[in-house]
């Protein structure tokens, strides 16, 4: 099953490699991993999307907690949560495709950030599946380049992750 782990870590050199090293050393999957400092710059927040049985997820959580740099770990998928991913996609936009591409971006609530006479660069946010849906709705040949951040997540309502 897919899980989203939110991890607060000390903003120390090497913290990221300790975490990625743990996943590779113990054979856990990482689907995506995002990280940036929080409002408290001494701490970073990481969102790790991983898959595994309940036993594996339990071990991942315990092993993460065991790392000295890790302050807190929460499995967002245990409760209601919001998940967002950002994608930048550069598409061919020439001739009759140009209007169609603009319409499609609008439908997906994308924003066109950069324009040339042959291409658009579109910004899109949403769940991973929404971004997938957008990519599937345009012809593969039209996509020039994509870059995705991987999911970031936060609990709904009063669920708060902080120290």
């Amino acid at each position, binding site marked *: 099953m897919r899980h989203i782990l939110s991890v607060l*870590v000390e903003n120390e*050199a090497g913290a990221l490699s300790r975490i990625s090293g743990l996943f590779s*050393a113990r054979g856990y999957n990482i689907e995506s991993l995002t990280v940036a400092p929080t409002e408290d710059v001494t701490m970073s927040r990481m969102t790790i999307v991983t898959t595994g049985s309940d036993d594996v997820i339990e071990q991942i959580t315990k*092993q993460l907690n*065991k790392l000295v740099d890790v302050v807190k770990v929460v499995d967002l998928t245990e409760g209601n949560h919001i998940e967002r991913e950002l994608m930048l996609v550069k598409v061919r936009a020439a001739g009759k495709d140009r209007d169609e591409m603009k319409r499609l971006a609008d439908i997906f609530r994308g924003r066109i950030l950069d324009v040339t006479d042959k291409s658009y660069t579109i910004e899109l946010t949403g769940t991973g599946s929404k971004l997938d849906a957008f990519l599937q709705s345009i012809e593969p040949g039209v996509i020039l380049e994509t870059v995705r951040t991987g999911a970031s997540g936060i609990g709904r309502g009063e669920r708060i992750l902080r120290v």
Partner: protein
Amino acid sequence: MQLTGAEIVIRCLVEEGVEYVFGYPGGSVLNIYDEFFKQDKVKHVLVRHEQGAVHAADGYSRSSHKVGVALVTSGPGVTNAVTGIATAYMDSIPMVVISGQVPTHAIGQDAFQECDAVGITRPCVKHNFLVKDVKDIAATIKKAFYLAATGRPGPVLVDIPKDITQAKAEYSYPKTVALRSYNPVTKGHAGQIKKAVSLLLEARRPMVYAGGGVVLNDAAPQLTRLVHLLGFPCTNTLMGLGAFPGTDPQFTGMLGMHGTYESNMAMQHCDVLIAIGARFDDRVIGSPSHFYRADRKIIHIDIDPSSISKRVKVDVPIVGYVGDVLDEMLKLIESSGERPDPAALKAWWAEIKEWQGQDCLRYDRKSALIKPQFVVEKLYELTGGDAFITSDVGQHQMWAAQYYKFDKPRRWINSGGLGTMGFGLPAAMGVQLVNPGATVACVTGEASIQMCIQELSTCKQYHLPIKIVNLNNRYLGMVRQWQEFFYGNRYAESYMDALPDFVKLADAYGHVGIKIEKPGDVEAALKEAFRQKDRLVFMDFVTDQTENVFPMVPGGKGLTEMILTEEL
């Protein structure tokens, strides 16, 4: 007071009460060595290879409950130390390794003797640090000792670039450490402890399975009291030997791949199993699916939450220091006045006695060749069971574990988790230094001993009268045994050809060597060796080449699927 980084390092070691540092100098640590030269509070032990330094610090720690300290230079100094660090990590040994690093401006430039020490050791340390500012040295070393010794212990590496040891800073040693990201649970959950106690009191076929965690937490007295109070059978893991007295009638012997028949049978057939400071590893329980087939309730006490339900799902997990948890359990049981059903226990013990009737550790005592088991038995007799025994890895390690009955914790020093050949001799150096006057013997084999044989020189320099019991079967014995059982007797590269004359070798290093070829000479040789209290004696026992370790649970098999003797 302004001090150089190197001075600060030494001051910190003094603050931590470090008596011995095991190390080897080199370019990046010259400033630190210069400070060693100028003081006499912390003694330095010069090893002959960095692996030896770390194993010596390890043996020092295992036999004393102090934090072991090693000091190595950058590059090859660190890479040589890695085997020792990984050994300590697998067995949760508290240790601080200080490594030199190339100057900060040279880091990342592929400088001479540069390696990414923090990167290369990351998977085998509890934590590590690269100190980038002289002002951080004291706080970092304080943290390193704190992390190494608390929670589940382990090695911590502090990497210090050369320019940082030269730079000056105001020195003050922090009194306390606060880490918001590190707060190991120490006290067990009261509700869980209560649940565990009622399970224990209701048990009809109980089993106590105690591991290295009991030794590390100095909880052997509590374990012994609990087992005696309840009248339960008790087994120890390889790492736990000595946690419960080996000569106690309630002790069923070691369990696992080369454990006793009765311990393994009792593990599988009990109705309540209490695991204390042990981690259900593959060499202990064999196949987890086979282990899980039995219907029993499992209580698991461990300081490390990630050890719980890792390989085996348990019913009552208790996270905390085993000593504290056992104290709480004892209080509850004593105040309750309740005891387990004596009739049920009697029937269970009768079953265990029947298993003991297998006499699974029997061997041919009439052989004209020296049986390795016999040597260990004699060693046990002549040392009154009171020696510190270090070992290397392989058959001799298992024989030492099976036939030397350890009544006290911290007497059996071996590389259980990583299985590091070459561990025994340098570990014995650390043991001897922290236990001067004690009898220290290294039970080894002709293959293992050669992996760190250079430390014979260190033993000479520091007058360490270790007794080396070399069970020389001219084979990588355990490899040979597997090849005999599972590879159709094809002994690929397991024969030790061109062995040195160990007597001459011992002599060349300035020690005493004795070669023993007949069973009748074993006792006399051991006596002679122990008579020479101030000398290292290398006893080269020429043993039966084809002897195998029994019982044996083949890799991946169930715990009760044991091979018992040669004939089977």
